[in-house]
């Protein structure tokens, strides 16, 4: 696993918990305990009310595909082995939008608004990344 040569997420102190979550196969969403908003991407303070009383909820891991693109060409060398790959914008049931990849599907079957669910893949001992596949 340590031969992973693609870029790893550059963490912030307040996103540590998120990446600990993916390691345990959980998609965590930052949640403001004061105003009740779900927050993505994780912030130091709630962007709605500036509260520092922030916690985490576990996402059901399901949502719909807002948009996608099948990347075929024009990427850095470290991503070339993955080509073609599908970049996805996913609207999670918890009301947030995340960027990810859509995996385990035929490209001709992809359409906006299809239901998708999260899958996890270990990148290194420290990092597990989250992808989506058709539900």
């Amino acid at each position, binding site marked *: 696993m340590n031969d992973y040569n*693609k*870029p*790893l*997420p*550059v*963490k*912030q102190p307040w*996103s540590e918990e998120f990446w600990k979550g993916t390691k345990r196969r959980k998609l965590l969403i930052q949640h403001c305990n004061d105003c009740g908003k779900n927050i*993505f*991407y994780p912030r130091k303070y709630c962007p709605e009310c500036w509260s520092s009383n922030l916690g985490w909820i576990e996402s059901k891991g399901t949502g719909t595909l*807002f*948009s*996608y*693109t*099948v*990347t*075929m*060409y*024009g*990427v*850095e*060398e470290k*991503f070339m082995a*993955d080509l073609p*790959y599908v*970049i996805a*914008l996913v*609207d999670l049931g918890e009301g*947030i*939008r*995340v*960027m*990810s*990849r859509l995996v385990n599907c035929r490209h001709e079957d992809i*359409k*906006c608004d299809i239901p998708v669910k999260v899958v996890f893949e270990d*990148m290194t001992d420290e990092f597990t*990344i989250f992808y989506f596949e058709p539900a």
Partner: protein
Amino acid sequence: MSRGKLAIVGIGEVATGWYPDRTEWDMIYDTCIEAIRDSGLGKNDVEGVISVNPMAQPKLQGEIGFGKVPEELGLKGCKDICIVNAGGSTTTNALRLAEHWIQSGIAKTVLIHHCTKHSSIPIDEAIRFFATAGIDLQWEYPFGMTYNALIALSMTRYMHDTKTTPEEMASIVVALNKWAQLDPLSMNRKPVTIEKVLASRMVTTPLHAFECNRLGDGASAMVVTSPELAKKLTDTPVYKLGEAVRYTQATITQRTDREGIRKAVSDAAKEVLKEAGITLKDISILELYVAYPLGIVNLLEGLGICMPGEAGKFIMEGNTSPGGKLPVSTMGDAVGRGHTGSGVGTATYVECARQLMGRAGERQVPNCKYILTNSAGGSGMNMIWSVFGRELK
């Protein structure tokens, strides 16, 4: 806000191209001296220099940012310099700063210039720069996100929602190319057809290679001053008559409000037209710097010129091409002109001035009175409209 407080009085530009044998400074000399000569000022009359930050070239950025331009050019009357960076909206901010310098008396005359030389950037450095500029290192980059993919994501959803066809999207490149064909300063002058666009390599669906930017080397410059001094210097001053802006978001995952960008475009446009005291009908040209075809669609629909989903048809019918009823981006934007980083923004204002001065050659739009310009930074982090005109109303 900014009505009638600044005028463009001189312009200079080198053709966008690929010049491995020219140095950056070679182009800086030529464009700046051309613009100052064009303004009618002497070299020692220029009191301020504002440079557009060459983001992908740290060495040039250091030289320019630490004051080399007036020294190289011998601008003995220069009182201060500054380098400005706001991505694609850099030149707009350079104009704002110049306006402040002029109005506050810091400098009566200001040289604004840009130079980008992509051909001198080592290829691995260039790839790394463009792979990560504006891409979030935590939430986007690990997935293999690219700038092209970012635009493609918006385009996929737009085409899904509006049933706009690949042919209609491709026609935007064709319309821009028609302007570029008439422009001796453009790099991509070879005629392009819808078929050729659609037959070009698929980069990231639905975006074809011809719908992406081709990097080029380029430099341009303009001299600006107060309207009072402008009238003494030239018969064809180009006045800035208004400006309005909205910030949107930096990151695509935050754009969950469908109407977000359209509303930002529309709200700022209403403000700028009001400030300039004109309506959309008075506009002779839209000079848009959007870099990707989808941007033009967003702006035409945001302005209300086209109903949502109809901009593709409007463009395919030739309305924005040479001879059309609403000329758009008369130098062909980055797709036609060649992409010179933030310099496409500078070149857009220089072209705006050229049209209003009546010096645009074969591209000249007859009786050009008012131009509405748009600039934006990043992937549309802001939407800035400005109005320029030949007369102070």
